[in-house]
């Protein structure tokens, strides 16, 4: 025992350690006694009572137009909820009579609910209307485990702007898996600004804890609502939309396929965005949503498709304004450069046809009368400049000018699902023709806005805005403030300059004014409003040409820039320009004087070919 002699002098220390163990154990037991036996506040009022967590759904944020008019609000409805673990022996038949479902449906719904959870509530019958709710609620006490939870659905004040708002639907399993905020049955914005601003609009869910007896009757709040959380309503959106203009635009576009986009040039705020055929946004709300969605989805005219952002059209003659600006910037043309147009442009077997017009034309005249011959010459002069080593370099310069107007790229703004459009690059032509196999003549159609060019109506309106602003644009956007109308959205406030010097824009704006004043667009001239515009007629291999027009007004310090595309309707001057003209008149004067002019547009039908106005 020699070895242990030294450490054994500490033998008594085992008592200290054991004492510490015992003291801690006793402290725990005393604490547990106070928690579990003395302190009744932790206990539920009776041993078998249970808590029911009722989700308090926040009201989704409201949506207003630019003048403070309410566009989207919420309406209450009710979900019948079930907690399978609390459903005892119930009279299934009388339950089915009460709620109007079949026994098979009851079994199926119960099975689904059990699969979700035995102890947590899930929706048994969704979206019950107010009247049925009152009746069901009255009898619900006979059926333990069932309770009603209120929620709200979207309601759209006007049957317009469906593509802008988008719609709200039940969160998919993928969304639920990726975002812990969402539970099965929760609503989430699926497209449009409902999607983009989802996190602002949805608010914050609250929870009310109710004490429930064994029969499923609510006894009262749990612990004086100490653990309840209040739902926080979503934040309101103040859009840039002018609802009167939007309604008017959708009316003008009735029986037509196409779109209108109107922008306030100085701010990039979208005043209206029309895509037709359209649909009433109220169709995609509530129980009828799935069914309506399917029928809209299978409609051959694709009403769900947002043409303003997702249809790509060659810009046609509208593109001449950009082409001309590039010519001026590159110095290959002067305002007084004159040309005699024989009615066509011809070079090495390639012919571009032109229409008859005054001759000879200077640069302004070429825009005023949309001269293809002039445009073809100008385009070739830009591309064939000696200062560039090869066509790749000159073409890339040209392309950079074009894309600086926002073409060929997405805006990445607050409207989801936009297309970038098409502006082919030199690699594209190298791949087709080989790097030495193409010249300005090969790509001549670009000079008149055809060929490998695709632009969305939104991009075209932005081109008009850029010219109206004399050289810059602000990213077009649809929401100007969130939560508080004064809390301005500054995200899209940057000026984006084009590669064209400011000095050239006054010339082009003046030329565009003359287009409307006495050129191709004179038919759409408005008394007392200086409107600048450019017509376009886009060749359509599948049928009648697309009618295109861009404009801004007033010519100096414009308040509105607009693009109109009407598919299969004919000349830009005949259909798109009048629509733009009416929109501008409506926006600037708040009324339309030219009734016969308006009626002609309202009567036009380009969807049913039998009713095509040019055929009558």
């Amino acid at each position, binding site marked *: 025992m020699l*070895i242990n002699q030294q450490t054994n002098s500490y033998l008594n*220390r085992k008592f200290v*350690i*054991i004492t510490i*163990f015992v003291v801690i*154990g006793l402290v725990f037991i005393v604490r*547990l006694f106070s928690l579990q036996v003395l302190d009744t506040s*932790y*206990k539920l009022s009776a041993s078998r009572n249970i808590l029911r967590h009722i989700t308090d759904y926040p009201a989704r944020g409201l949506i207003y137009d630019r003048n403070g008019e309410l566009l989207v609000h919420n309406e209450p409805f009710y979900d019948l909820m079930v907690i399978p*673990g609390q459903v005892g022996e119930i009279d299934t038949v009388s339950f089915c009579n009460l709620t109007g479902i079949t026994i098979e449906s009851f079994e199926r719904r119960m099975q689904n609910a059990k699969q979700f959870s035995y102890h947590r509530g899930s929706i048994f019958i969704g979206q019950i209307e107010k009247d049925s709710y009152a009746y069901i609620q009255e009898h619900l006490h006979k059926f333990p485990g069932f309770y009603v939870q209120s929620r709200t659905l979207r309601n759209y004040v006007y049957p317009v702007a469906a593509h802008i708002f988008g719609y709200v639907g039940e969160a998919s399993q993928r969304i639920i898996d990726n975002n812990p905020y969402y539970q099965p049955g929760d609503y989430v914005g699926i497209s449009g600004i409902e999607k983009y601003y989802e996190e602002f609009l949805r608010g914050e869910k609250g929870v009310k804890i109710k004490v429930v007896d064994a029969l499923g009757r609510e006894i009262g709040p749990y612990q004086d609502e100490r653990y309840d959380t209040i739902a926080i309503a979503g934040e309101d959106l103040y859009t840039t939309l002018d609802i009167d203009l939007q309604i008017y635009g959708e009316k003008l576009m009735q029986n037509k396929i196409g779109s209108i986009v109107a922008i306030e040039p100085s701010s990039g705020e979208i005043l209206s965005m029309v895509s037709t055929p359209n649909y009433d946004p109220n169709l995609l709300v509530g129980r009828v949503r799935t069914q309506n969605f399917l029928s809209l989805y299978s409609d051959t005219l694709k009403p769900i498709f947002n043409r303003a952002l997702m249809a790509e059209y060659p810009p046609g003659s509208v593109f001449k304004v950009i082409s001309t600006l590039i010519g001026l910037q590159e110095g290959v043309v002067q305002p007084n450069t004159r040309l005699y147009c024989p009615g066509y442009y011809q070079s090495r077997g390639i012919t571009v046809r032109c229409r008859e017009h005054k001759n000879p034309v200077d640069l302004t005249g070429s825009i005023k009368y949309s001269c293809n011959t002039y445009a073809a010459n100008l385009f070739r002069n830009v591309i064939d400049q000696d200062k560039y080593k090869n066509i790749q370099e000159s073409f890339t310069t040209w392309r950079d000018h074009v894309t600086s107007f926002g073409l060929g790229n997405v805006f990445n703004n607050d409207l989801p699902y936009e297309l970038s459009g098409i502006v082919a690059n030199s690699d594209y032509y190298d791949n087709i023709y080989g790097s030495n196999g193409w010249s300005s003549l090969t790509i001549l159609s670009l000079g008149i806005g055809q060929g490998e060019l695709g632009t969305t109506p939104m991009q075209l309106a932005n081109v008009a805005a850029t010219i109206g602003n004399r050289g810059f644009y602000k990213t077009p956007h649809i929401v100007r403030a969130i939560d508080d109308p004064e809390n301005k959205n500054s995200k899209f406030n940057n000026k984006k300059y084009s590669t064209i010097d400011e000095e050239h824009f006054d010339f082009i704006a003046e030329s565009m004014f003359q287009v409307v004043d006495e050129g191709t667009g004179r038919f759409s001239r408005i008394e007392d409003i200086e409107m600048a515009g450019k017509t376009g007629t886009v060749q359509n291999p599948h049928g009648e040409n697309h009618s295109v027009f861009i404009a801004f007004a007033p010519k100096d310090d414009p308040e509105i820039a607009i693009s109109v595309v009407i598919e299969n309707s004919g000349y830009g001057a005949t259909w798109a320009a009048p629509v733009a003209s009416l929109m501008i008149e409506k926006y600037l004067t708040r009324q339309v004087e030219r009734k016969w002019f308006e009626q002609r547009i309202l009567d036009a039908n380009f969807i049913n070919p039998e009713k095509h106005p040019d055929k009558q």
Partner: protein
Amino acid sequence: MRPQQFNILKDVDKPLLIIYLILVFIGVANVYAAEIDGSHKAILDFSHNHGKQILFAAISLLIASIILSVDIKIFTSFSYAIYWFFILVLISVLIFGTEIKATKAWFQIGGFAIQPSEFAKFATAMVIAKYISSVKGTTIKFKNRLKAFILIAIPTALVLMQNDTGTTLVFGAFVFVLYREGYVSGIILAFIAMAIFLFVLTLLINEIYIIAGIVSLTIIISIIIRKKKTEILQLIGVCILLSAYVYSVDYCFENILQHHQKERITVLIDDEIDMRGPGYNLNQSKIAIGSGGLWGKGYLEGTQTKFDFVPEQGTDFIFCTIGEEWGFAGSTTLILIYMIFLIRIVLLAEKQRSIFSRIYGYSVASILFFHFAINIGMTIGLVPVIGIPLPFLSYGGSSMVGFTILLFIFLKLDAKKLER
């Protein structure tokens, strides 16, 4: 001669073995209870935690019987090798490990994550036992204390670097071992206790009052023992030291602790804190345990744990399920079982003839005690929320296997009754 397989239980302490099996069984039963929600799942379902826990228990029993079968010299002779091996593993987990819940303490292997720090505990216990038992002479030199301290400090530092506060604190358990062996004096132990006491007090009361209290106590005692000059001087020294400590605790709390660490402490002492924010876990845990009442709601009848109100209900908060379903009667019984278990280990350790076995036994008791104290203290709101498992009960493979190895090496040492 009896068949080989019965020999492994020869001389093994039956009470400890039985309590071990009881605890494992309670664990599996409550992991199951914490998890099922009405749709009765198969007991042996390896896609769920309770099924895996049964698997872990089976693996643990297999390892336990291997430990009981092998030659004990493997552990006594290779203590250092085992220790350094696990130090290397701890270093490599810092480099190659996977981060789970902000703690970089895991190796991901297939569907399982292994936590090496669970094994570092018994490795450290062995090396301390080995080192202290090898110290010759009758007095403990400073060099010896330093070396023992370093052997503990290395794994502690490595675990701290994993950002695993809970397991780091558990290495504090060796204070008891060092105290028992005379490496730490009673005064230091008292000071540690005093420090913890004053720490909590400082958070509850303005430090001015505490310092005033300490000073007036010093004055009163000085008057009583006014004749003993040296003692009064010592007393004044202690007074200044304690006052400085109280002041610095306040300073550290306000300025040095990170926000989440501060929150975990303030939820304990501040009733008005937002129960849905930082106080949520603790509050739900207290509701679950408190709602159990005297007799509990009955097995599988708990609503609080099953509604997923209580977080980590199968792992760190397993005691909630017991408190809710078995009430005060059940949770007190569990605490008593644990007390008997721990005291039995201490008494057995004292009976050892080899110093190695005694020190190792103390290490086992201290480590298990720390886990027990911190884990249960946390669920009932006496200790800040620190995520460490309740030995043998909490869900988790690494901890189950780690604690089993820790315990059964001691059972083997005890069975062999080493002579040295």
